[in-house]
Each structure stands twice: as structure tokens, then as C-alpha cells.
């Protein structure tokens, strides 16, 4: 590593980014000092173990990453808008599509889903926090450390440039000698550990901490989806952990697992990557199915149609998700039998997915449909995602896939799956649960305008890509000649991308405006919803439920409203809550420093920070912290204040 290679140089855009990073950091530091908010930041956020605040931090991070990944996407679309465009060179373009994929999947979709999971799950099952609140904070700060490491790569050392799939031997030290793919192996590893801890945490939370009477088959559908998702994480993420470790050994310690020489096997990487990578798709999509189930049921004023088949179909999807990985590389040459098997297992997923689509449609049928912003996203999901689904079946057919593989057709397909399947869902969930967290709704009129802009622009951006694929345009190509005839459709897609960007900017304005002017909701149940989280006051007090509710069926809060039977009984008692702790944050920062030194192979500081990590684990192991109690008086006051009752 030469010092003149430390900062990425020679690109005006990168200098601009550097300047803006420095300026933004300065502004934050000055602002915090001027408004004397350092203490507030430390006490209320950096040291918090409250699942709601951790969820909010995940969502803020995800929104920031959405804009980072979105900028990457816009740059790609700008570069491809016209033939032989000179805006970006090949190297820059390669880095951008690599980070676009990594950030959107791992640092946008994942944290957004996990953020909503954090906010909603304990509330939905009638619990006061997750099973391991401290561990939850560790998960967040590890995710944060990984995300920051990957983001810093484009100004320091260079971004990964071998695609988000990082296929070997392209990602090996021979063919990709910059530190970019070191960032890949280290940053993803750190964030991945956080995700794995989240999975354990939520599995235990959902299995052990449900309110009395909430049997498994009485859980809300979002809770079910999260339970199944976390089972997938528990089985899939260790594969990523191992693959990234092998990658690190190959790149930094001269191992030859995936190299071209000495018996290394590039096909092994592709297999390991997708054994994790395909279940990963379902990790971000199943919770979305859960979110849609909640929202569609709420705004149809009906219970979810086919509850049991919804649950079983998710279980089947989760099992099948581990049996389809080779469809990502039918073209690797594994013959008719293997490709036949994976074609059939892949198409089989269409059956349980179809069951869900029809169950949602029949939930809507005979309902009393209200078109709120979260409902609009959920309703748009059905027709758009169905296009993503049927094109997925087309891609599953191996013989035809030889023609779609690596083309824009594939790119169009997975954006048609992931944007309505995940992005629309987290936005819908964001609008839906926002009042629970902040005590007011986001402005509905503005929300709808943003929705229409986003939904229409999405189709303008990605529908043309199907045709570009059939015309023979490959993905990841940084330019094309005018004779190919790819120009007009690319221009159309780029125009759509601008619309999409405007939609998201307007969405941010929607949030800003609502923070300033939206009227306060004092009911705690602004949507007239069905599940337990809406029985709490908004914003939710730190202990969630002053009294733990009793559950005797599906949609307990709805039933309680209809029958007049109260959900809770008895008198307030002292509530035992965990203490805040700075340790998770400090641990995350040490991990970040450790990772940064590892990326540059600075061994001595790496070892020092490595020891730091061990010390932090030891400190926690010997710590005695029995938490604290909230007095009955304080509970009474809080409940009265939040429910707007003037005593």
C-alpha cells in the first residue's frame, strides 16, 4: 500500500464527495456543540437499548443508504442514457454498480426491514422489549460499522469493483489488486455478524416473549413472516460468514480457495455465494409479505383471508429458498439433470407465492377498502410484483435462461421483484407505523403524490429493460455503440430514473413537512387497526405496555374494540427495564477501526483493535447490571400524559 494510493484521486466527482463529507461532518459537529446536544445524543441514542429507538436508528441509516445507493443508480442511468457516453469510465462505472447492489441489498433493504422488525415485533406480541436488548444494540452498531466501512471505500482506497456477487477469479487479488474487495470481505463480515445476532435475538423474542394466550397460530402475519425470516437468516448467514472468511484468506493471506492456480475453484465461490444469496432474497421479501398482510387487512376492515395457508406458504417458501441457488448460474455448464432439478424447484416457489397473491385479493374482496398512502403502496405491489413473479418463472426455465442470463432482462426482473416486493413494503410500513413512533401521521396528500410519482416512474425505468435484454444488451456494460439500437429505450429508462429520484425527494419533503405541521394523534390508533401495537399510546412509552395484554384469538385489539372487552386487567406494578449502555457503541467503533486496519493489512493496529474487541467482550461478561425499575407513580403519569387525559 503506497500512501499516494490511500485517497482515491483524479476524479472531480470524488473530490466533490470528499469535500461534502468533510463539510457535512463539520456541520454535524458544530451543530451538536452549538445546540448542546452531545449529551442528548449520547444518553438517548448512542447508548440506548430500547428496541424502538434502535429501530428508528436502523430506519434512518437505511434512508441515508437509500439515497447513497440511489445516487449510484442515477449515475448508472446517466451513463447509459446515450450511446458511447463519456460521463464515467469503465472502472468508475464498475465500482458504482458494485456498491449500488451491495448497498441496496445489505445496507438499505436489510436494515429497513430489521428496523421495522425492531419497532413492531415486541409491540405486536405484547412484550416490553426484545429478549436481549443489549445484544440488539450490538447488532445495530455492528451493522453501522460495516455500512460506514463500505461507504468510506469510495474515497479511501477505492470501492469494490467486481460486482455485488464478487465472482472469483475476478475478485481475487490477481485481477482486482486494489483494496476494494478487501472492504467487501471485511465490511460485509462485520455487518453480517450483526445480522446473525439479530436473528437469534428475534427468534428468542418471538418464541419466548409473546403475551399470554398468543399461541403461534394467533400471531399477527408480520410476526410470522419475521419468525420465518429469522430462521432463514440463522441458516443462510453462516454460509456468508464462511465464504467471506475464505475470501479474506485468499485476498490477504495467500490462500487459494477460489483462485485460478493451485487447485483453487472459482465455481465454489459462485455456489457458496448463492447458497446464501438466494435465501437472502427471501430474507428481504418475506417480511414485506408480512407488512402487506397487516396493511391490506387493516384498510379492508377485514381479517386476513386464508391465515393458515399464508403461514404454510411462507414456511414452504423458506424451505424452497435453500434449494434453488444454482438457477443463478445455469450457464456454468452443469448439464440437463442439474439444471432440470433447479428449474423445477425454482418454479415450484411460484405456487406458494401465488397462494399469497390470491389470499390478499380475497382479503380485499367484500372489504371496505380505504386508499391511504400505506394502502396505495400495498395495492400497487400486487400487479407490479406479479410481473416480477411471472418473469421469474420465465427465467427459471433453464433453456430460455441461456438467453436471458446476464442481460437487462434479468436486471428488469429483479428490480420488479425487489422494488415492489421490498422497497414499496418498507415505505408502506414506514407510513403505517410512523404514527406509533412519533405520535402523528405523515401527510396523506403529499404521501400519495410521492407514491404516484414513484410507482409510475418505476415502471418507466424498468419496463424498457426487459426489451433491452431481449435485444441482447448485457448488464454491467458501461457503454454501448449507437448501432446496437439500445439508445432510445435506455434514454426512456433514464428519464424514469429521474422521476423516481424526484419521487423520493418529495417523500423526504413529506416527512419534513409532517414533522413541522402534522396534527398530533392522541388515540394511539389512528388507522382503526387490529393488532396489539395499536393498543398502546403514541408515541409508545419505553416500557411499551403498562399492563401486559391477554390474547384469546387473532386480531385481539380489533376484537376488544368490537366487543368492548378490555385487553388488560389488574393494577399497575413496577416495571423492570434494562439500563442503557455505551458498550455496544464502543464495541461497534472498535470493530470499525479493526476492520479498517484489516482492509489495508496494517497488522499491528489490527491486532491492537482485535485485543480491544476481546477486552470489550470480557468487560461485558464480568459486568453486573440488574437493570432498573419504573415506579407505579411514573407509569400512571406517563399513561395519562400520552393518552391525553388531563387528570
Amino acid at each position: 500500500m503506497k500512501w499516494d494510493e490511500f485517497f482515491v484521486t483524479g476524479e472531480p466527482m470524488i473530490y466533490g464527495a470528499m469535500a461534502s463529507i468533510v463539510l457535512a461532518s463539520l456541520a454535524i459537529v458544530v451543530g451538536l456543540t452549538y445546540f448542546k446536544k452531545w449529551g442528548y445524543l449520547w444518553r438517548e441514542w448512542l447508548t440506548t437499548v430500547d428496541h424502538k429507538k434502535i429501530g428508528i436508528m436502523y430506519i434512518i441509516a437505511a434512508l441515508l443508504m437509500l439515497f447513497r445507493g440511489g445516487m449510484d443508480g442515477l449515475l448508472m442511468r446517466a451513463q447509459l442514457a446515450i450511446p458511447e457516453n463519456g460521463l464515467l469510465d469503465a472502472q468508475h462505472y464498475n465500482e458504482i454498480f458494485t456498491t449500488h447492489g451491495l448497498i441496496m441489498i445489505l445496507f438499505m433493504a436489510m436494515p429497513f426491514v430489521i428496523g421495522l422488525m425492531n419497532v413492531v415485533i415486541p409491540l405486536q406480541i405484547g412484550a416490553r422489549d426484545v429478549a436481549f436488548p443489549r445484544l440488539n444494540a450490538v447488532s445495530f452498531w455492528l451493522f453501522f460499522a460495516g455500512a460506514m466501512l463500505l461507504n468510506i471505500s469510495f474515497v479511501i482506497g477505492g470501492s469494490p469493483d467486481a460486482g455485488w456477487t464478487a465472482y472469483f477469479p475476478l475478485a481475487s487479488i490477481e485481477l482486482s489488486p486494489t483494496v476494494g474487495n478487501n472492504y467487501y470481505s471485511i465490511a460485509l463480515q462485520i455487518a453480517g455478524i450483526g445480522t446473525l445476532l439479530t436473528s437469534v435475538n428475534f427468534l428468542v423474542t418471538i418464541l419466548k416473549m409473546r403475551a399470554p394466550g398468543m399461541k403461534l397460530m394467533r400471531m399477527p402475519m408480520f410476526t410470522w413472516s419475521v419468525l420465518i425470516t429469522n430462521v432463514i437468516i440463522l441458516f443462510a448467514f453462516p454460509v456468508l460468514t464462511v465464504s467471506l472468511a475464505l475470501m479474506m484468506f485468499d485476498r490477504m493471506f495467500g490462500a487459494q480457495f477460489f483462485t485460478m492456480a493451485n487447485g483453487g475453484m472459482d465455481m465454489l465461490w459462485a455456489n457458496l455465494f448463492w447458497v446464501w444469496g438466494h435465501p437472502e432474497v427471501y430474507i428481504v421479501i418475506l417480511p414485506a409479505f408480512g407488512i402487506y398482510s397487516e396493511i391490506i387487512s387493516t384498510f379492508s376492515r377485514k381479517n386476513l383471508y386464508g391465515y393458515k395457508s399464508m403461514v404454510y406458504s411462507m414456511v414452504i417458501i423458506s424451505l424452497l429458498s435453500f434449494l434453488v441457488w444454482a438457477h443463478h448460474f445455469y450457464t456454468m455448464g452443469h448439464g440437463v439433470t442439474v439444471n432440470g432439478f433447479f428449474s423445477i424447484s425454482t418454479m415450484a416457489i411460484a405456487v406458494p407465492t401465488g397462494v399469497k397473491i390470491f389470499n390478499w385479493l380475497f382479503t380485499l374482496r367484500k372489504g371496505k377498502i380505504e386508499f391511504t398512502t400505506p394502502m396505495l403502496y400495498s395495492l400497487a405491489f400486487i400487479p407490479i410484483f406479479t410481473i416480477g413473479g411471472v418473469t421469474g418463472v420465465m427465467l427459471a426455465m433453464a433453456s430460455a435462461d441461456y438467453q436471458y442470463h446476464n442481460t437487462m432482462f434479468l436486471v428488469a426482473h429483479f428490480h420488479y421483484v425487489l422494488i415492489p416486493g421490498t422497497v414499496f413494503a418498507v415505505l408502506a410500513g414506514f407510513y403505517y407505523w410512523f404514527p406509533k413512533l412519533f405520535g402523528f401521521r405523515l401527510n396523506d396528500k403529499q404521501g400519495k403524490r410521492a407514491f404516484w410519482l414513484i410507482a409510475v416512474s418505476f415502471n418507466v425505468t424498468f419496463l424498457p429493460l426487459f426489451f433491452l435484454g431481449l435485444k441482447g444488451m448485457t448488464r454491467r456494460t458501461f457503454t454501448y455503440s449507437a448501432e446496437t439500437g439500445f439508445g432510445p429505450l435506455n434514454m426512456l429508462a433514464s428519464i424514469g430514473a429521474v422521476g423516481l429520484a424526484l419521487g423520493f425527494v418529495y417523500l423526504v419533503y413529506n416527512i419534513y413537512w409532517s414533522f413541522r405541521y402534522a396534527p398530533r394523534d392522541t388515540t394511539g390508533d389512528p388507522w382503526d387497526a387490529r393488532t396489539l401495537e395499536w393498543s398502546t399510546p403514541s408515541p409508545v412509552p419505553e416500557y411499551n405496555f403498562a399492563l401486559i395484554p391477554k390474547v384469546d384469538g387473532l386480531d385481539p385489539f380489533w376484537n376488544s374494540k368490537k366487543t368492548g372487552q378490555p385487553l388488560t386487567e389488574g393494577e399497575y406494578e413496577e416495571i423492570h427495564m434494562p439500563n442503557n449502555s455505551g458498550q455496544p457503541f464502543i464495541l461497534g467503533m472498535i470493530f470499525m477501526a479493526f476492520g479498517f486496519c484489516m482492509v489495508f493489512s496494517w497488522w499491528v493496529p489490527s491486532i491492537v483493535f482485535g485485543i480491544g474487541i476481546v477486552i470489550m467482550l470480557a468487560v461485558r461478561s464480568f459486568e453486573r447490571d440488574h437493570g432498573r425499575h419504573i415506579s407505579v407513580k411514573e407509569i400512571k403519569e406517563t399513561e395519562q400524559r400520552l393518552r391525553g387525559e388531563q387528570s
Partner: protein
Amino acid sequence: MLLVVFSALLVLLTGCNSLAVLNPKGPAAKTQSEVIIFSMIVMAIILLVVYVLYIFIITKYRASKAAPDYEPPHEEGNWLLEMVWIVIPIIIVTVLSVVTVRSTSAVENVAAGYENEKPLVIYAASSDWKWHFSYPEEGIETVNYVNIPTHRPIEFRLYSYGAISSLWIPQLGGQKYAMSDMVNTLHLLAEQPGSYVGKNANFSGKGFSQMEFEALAMSPTEYAEWVKEVKDTASDLTEEEFNSLLEMNFAGRKTYKSTHLEFNPPPEGENAGHDHGGSSDSDSSTEMDHSEMDMDHSNMDHSEENATNGN
């Protein structure tokens, strides 16, 4: 609305020659194009059912149309209905599975009707960022273009001197990976003479976008003439020359009257991947200077055209 757009485009594209994948010039591509169009029709029917149901439901059951005191019913589900939307998709998937396995088998083998013909073997090797085509039968080698006779099965044997690449000639048939540690076989056949775009479809680094080549299908007599001409006019491909080709980033079109297969054998048989220690090219690629992106139009180019990328 979406449906109308989608089906209109579907009609448009099925008759449209500008979609290379649906404008086949050989049996493999033809099979694939038929499978694609068949699946599109099936999918369009599924979309139609879902969309009709969807539009009907969200127009009929909106709150603004309902009576103020309307209470939606409590519905657990319906066993019979749910069986309908489980069984019908299973039937569809079964049909598609049969089509898939049959057509995959068809395109993975020599095209039907040509089984008795001796295939023309062409080794296609990628290096960053070129294609090397070796004709062992004729003893000639080309770079960045490939000439083939029509109506004769071509057996491409694919491998790579660098990153994984994927040889794709959309109008002749689907793609397959070329990798450094094994040889893959791709069966193609051209039924009409013509110049077809070929390319690397799998991202392989900085020069990936320039890895296009021309696949020129010509009548067997023209092909024989071309081979003879190459034999008469081109020079030998020496080991030294080949190594320098591997090292340069871009090479333009080149033609030789001998192949690299003798001194630099492909990774098949005893030379296959996982037991041959330190291959000769691994050192050179480490030292490869990735900043040298300039094209090298070497004067050893023996073909008439200097074009790099075909069309």
C-alpha cells in the same frame, strides 16, 4: 392499464426483428425463442386473470362506494377456492417443467437432424479482454472474430485465461461460461449465412464492454475458401506471440495458420483445473498493468478489416 401496455408490447415484440433473442438464425436459438414466446403467452394469461380479478375487486369494494354501515364479513378462507389456486398453478408449473427439461436437453445437444454430422470443434478461449478461436481440425486460429460454415454443428469448447466470461451469440443460441479450470461445451448451428453479434455476457472487469466479436456464418464452400486463404496468407502463432496476445488488453482482429492448443493446452483431460500446479499464465496476469487501456492495433493483423468489435 399496465396490462394493456404489457400485452401491446408483447404483440409488438413477437413480430419484431430488432429483438435479437426472438430473431433466431439457428436451431438452438429457435428452440429458445419458441420456449420464450410460449412462456410469455402462459404468463400473459396468468397476468390477465390476476389483473381482471384485481381491478374488479378494488373498484367494487372501495369504502367510498360502500354503505356507511357496511360491516365487512369475517372470512377464515375457503378450502375449495384455495385448492383451485394451488392445483392450477401446480399444473402450469408441471407443464412448464416438461417444456424446460425437454428444451434444455435439446439445446445442450447437437441440434436435431444434425446428429450424424461430424461437428466442427472450435476452442473459444477468453483472456482479458479478447476472444481466441482455435480450429484444431483446420489448424488455424483467429482473435475477436469467428467464421463458421452454415448447416454444420459447431461444438464450441469454452475456457478462460482470466475472469469467468460467457460466450453469447444471441441469434444462434444461449450463452455458456468460459472458466479457467475446466472446459464447457456449447453446441450452436447457423442455418442462415450472415454476420451475427457475439459477445461476452459475463462481467469480467474494465474491458468487459469491448469484448464483442463478429460471428460470420458462410456457406461450406465459402468457408473452405476462407480456410485455404488463411493457410496461404497468415503466419504461424508462436508461443511468444500468443503470450504477448494474452498480456495486451485489447488486440483487434487477428488471424494465424496455427493454434495455441499445442503449447498452451486447454484445461481438459489431464490438464483440467484442480490438480495442475502453478499454471504459466498466473504470473503474467499479476503483473498485468491495468492502467494500459489503449488499443493495440498490431501490425501483425492479417485480416482485411481492422475493426475491433465486428458490428
